[in-house]
């Protein structure tokens, strides 16, 4: 009962407060920018000099303002937003009118989750395992060589690194496609041909994220392990004749894992913000470009839909970590 009162309830309240404040901020901030969604839509309709009679433009502005639900004061719109959100309705996208925001997010989400979940987990697992071993055996030559490789790769700006991969494996060697999520003319279906095609298109984006993400996990884990390895309790265990495999797994890795588990939780929560630069370099579908375009065009409902998803995901990840942490760290449980 004490756990519920002193630990669970405060965190649930904090969880709801963060979501409330996040939604409010996402409602207000886009409306403070000079981007007007109605004028953006009209500007796109008039793109390349296509003709819309200016005499009827004012009427069109009025019609669109009404259709987009932008009539009334900010407060009226804010109240209307919460009413919609409680019904689970994100509204329609302004720029892709009348497509519902949920449809747009639902279409982009599998690409983003498929790519980022896979690469985050793979890079975390391999980065931590190799980093842990390289940290424990830091005087070995192979560990030093890996460290040099990581030091060379890590500082590379992601855009440059990703574009280099595209250039090498898409243009010079031509092993992988240079753009898109699937081949031209291929319709989504559960066949090996289509799945293989999707995997082939995802390879370069995934490789770029895995390598750069993996080197980050590798370096942090290596440093943490080196620090833990220098702690007195590890030295005592070694002097006490504890088996090395037990020292590595129970004494060093377990302690070193704690911050990495926290970081993994946050990284998984951030998946829902998308991977904008990856999507741009590889012309890959996902939430990143959807959100970017929504911001540029002042598509308030779409901005709200994607950021709400991200806010909920990150706060849920933090809540889950808070609740699960006692399982990893007995010191938290004893408090």
């Amino acid at each position, binding site marked *: 009962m004490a756990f519920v009162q002193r630990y669970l309830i405060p965190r649930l309240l904090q969880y709801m407060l963060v979501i409330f404040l996040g939604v409010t901020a996402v409602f207000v901030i886009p409306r403070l920018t000079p981007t*007007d969604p109605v004028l953006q839509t009209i500007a796109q309709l008039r793109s*390349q000099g296509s003709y819309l009679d200016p005499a009827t433009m004012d009427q069109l502005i009025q019609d669109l303002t009404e259709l987009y639900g932008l009539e009334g004061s900010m407060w009226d719109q804010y109240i209307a937003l919460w009413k919609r959100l409680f019904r689970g309705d994100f509204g329609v996208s302004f720029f892709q*009118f009348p497509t519902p925001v949920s449809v747009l997010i639902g279409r982009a989400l599998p690409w983003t989750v498929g790519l980022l979940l896979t690469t985050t987990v793979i890079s975390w697992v391999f980065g931590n395992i190799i980093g842990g071993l390289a940290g424990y055996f830091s005087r070995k030559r192979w560990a030093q060589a890996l460290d040099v490789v990581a030091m060379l790769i890590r500082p590379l700006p992601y855009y440059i690194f990703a574009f280099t991969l595209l250039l090498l494996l898409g243009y010079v060697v031509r092993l992988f496609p240079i753009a898109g999520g699937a081949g031209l*003319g291929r319709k989504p279906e559960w066949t090996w041909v289509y799945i293989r095609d999707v995997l082939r298109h995802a390879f370069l984006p995934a490789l770029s994220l895995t390598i750069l993400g993996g080197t980050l996990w590798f370096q942090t884990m290596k440093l943490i392990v080196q620090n833990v390895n220098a702690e007195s309790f590890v030295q005592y265990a070694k002097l006490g004749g504890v088996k090395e495999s037990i020292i590595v797994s129970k004494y060093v890795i377990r302690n070193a894992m704690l911050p990495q588990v926290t970081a993994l939780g946050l990284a998984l929560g951030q998946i829902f913000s998308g991977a904008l630069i990856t999507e741009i370099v590889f012309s890959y579908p996902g939430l990143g*470009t959807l959100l970017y*375009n929504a911001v540029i065009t002042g598509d308030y409902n779409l901005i709200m839909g994607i950021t709400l998803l991200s806010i909920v995901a990150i706060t849920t990840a933090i809540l889950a970590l808070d609740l699960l942490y006692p399982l990893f760290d007995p010191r938290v449980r004893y408090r």
Partner: protein
Amino acid sequence: MRGKSMLLIASLLAALSLLVACGPTPTMTPVEVTRIVQGTPIVVTATPVPVPKEKAPDVLGVFPRSETLIAAQLTGRVGAPDDFNEWVGWKWRDRGMQQLMNEPLWSIDFATGQIINGLADGDPIYNEDFTQVTIPLRKGVTWSDGEPFTAADVVFTAETLMKYEGFNAHSFFVENVKRVYAPDDYTVVFELNQPNSRFHTTFLDRWGSTWIMPKHIFEKVDDPVKFQFNPPVGTGPYKLHSYDPAGYWTAWEKREDWDKSPTGILFGEPKPKYIVFQAFATEGAKILAQLIHQLDAVDLSADGLKAALAQGETNRAYQLTFPWVVNNDPCITGITFNTAKPPYDNPEVRWALILAIDIVEYEAQAVDGAGTLSPVHIPSLGPYPEYYIKPMQDWLKEFTLDLGNGETFKPYDPEAPARLAEYVKSRGYAIPDDPAFIAQAFGYGWYKYAPDVAEKLLIKNGFSRDADGKWRLPDGKPWRIEVISRSDMSHLEYKNAAAAVQQWKKFGIDAVHVPSDQVSAVTQYGEYDVSGNWPAFEPWGAGADLYRTLDVFNSAYVKPIGEPTQGHTSRWSSPEMDAVLKRLRETDPTHTEQVIAAGTEGLKILVQNMPGFPTFGYIGFVSWDEYYWTNWPGAENPYTQPYTHWGPFKYMTPFLQPTGR
């Protein structure tokens, strides 16, 4: 060991760099091509077609590459790929809908200066007071599902657009149309609420128009605003094959009954069996795709075009020699002043700022001399030099500014194009000395570089210089000009703004360039000094009518700062311009002489007032790969407009030639 590892990695990187540098290097051999225009064989210069060493893939995705044409989609990834209802909102119509699936009633072809009858069978016929227009329709056209196209479709379209508020054109049709009816299957009559001699232009495709709905489909739909129209049906020569649910490509297949489309009837069978519009998120990806022959046509930036031409042996630009670019786009670039804000509300100040510009330096900085100068607010291309710019030369030469104290100045400089040509030669580009070429490539004139005259005009209006030679406003405060533009450095709005800032700085004004992604909203609300916005709305690109160019200066559209305007962002108007617009409204747009007389008057008023000043025509950086397809409409053979994103791309498809690879 660390040193050895470093050496190993450095060697690997060096090897990879070498691989990049040693990318595919094809060779070239000449191949002859021919073409037929509207059934008439025409002799044309053969275009050399290079033959690369490496073999490109036979199949791309599911398409046989040799029968497929791939073009980059200008407006990028489609946000609503399932939705083809282009009458509602923005639906990325350049994904092939306006170019391949749809036929409009009429199309603008700016390269030939012609208006092409698509679904219409001739010009619109207005009654005397322009309250009624009769449109003859083409016989023998069917929709891509086999249903015949008739006047009932046009009537249904107008009535449906008027019935539902959610349609983009709802307001326009409600405001203009009293009644629409079809006296027979191939004639449609619009009765209008008030006289409107340009009503038909809503059906004239200039990168978009009011498209005709297939009545047999939309009449069965409960809510035509929310209807996704998927799969779509059109009267164009292609039908939808497939599309990427993520929005990166849309594929079209030639109709088996292509001869039932206006394109087939007018120009014959389109050559590509499939046409794919593909979106790329970066220019780098576009260039790479073209270098490996996976992209046949693309619009690039200036630097992108240079890179593509340098690397691709089978790449070509619109022009085979300098300046390579598309310089017949019907759009004039330049600078716009916010005339609702002092001191830009004073035409003499605006003129002083123009005379402080050395146009050769300006254009050299902006586009390396590749643009065609125009002294008036329409581009010096297509029909416009003959209709307007050449006949206006005498007036321009005599146009005089009053400098005060009885002193006057004639600002026009017919030698400016020759000076620009000299600059181009100094850059090492070989160009003919032929005056006709100079006029075609660099224009007929611009304005003198006269900083001394600019100074006199400013002093006349109370401006002064401080001890450092910097200009001060009449109230004694330092003069700072903020020139806002888009943030995309390759855009000509950005390039114009940057060049103007440089010139005015040189003249002693504290000018700064403010690139912004919000430029559209900021200028529409009037919260700026000077912008890189086009100085006038783009003309049609065909015919003599300048109504759409001048109408944005209608005083009815002028709004106070803080309210969005749908007129020109300069917020300038005048009773004289209103009178010209009234005259144009009362003139049949097909009466060329009367239209030119009124249009010329409008251009003169703009030159006198310069709410914005024109510089050079819009430049397009088109790159074509001739590996699979040739006979593109380049400058040596401009049988139609060159863009794959414009509607008349459909009229290019019968003339493209497969190379047989």
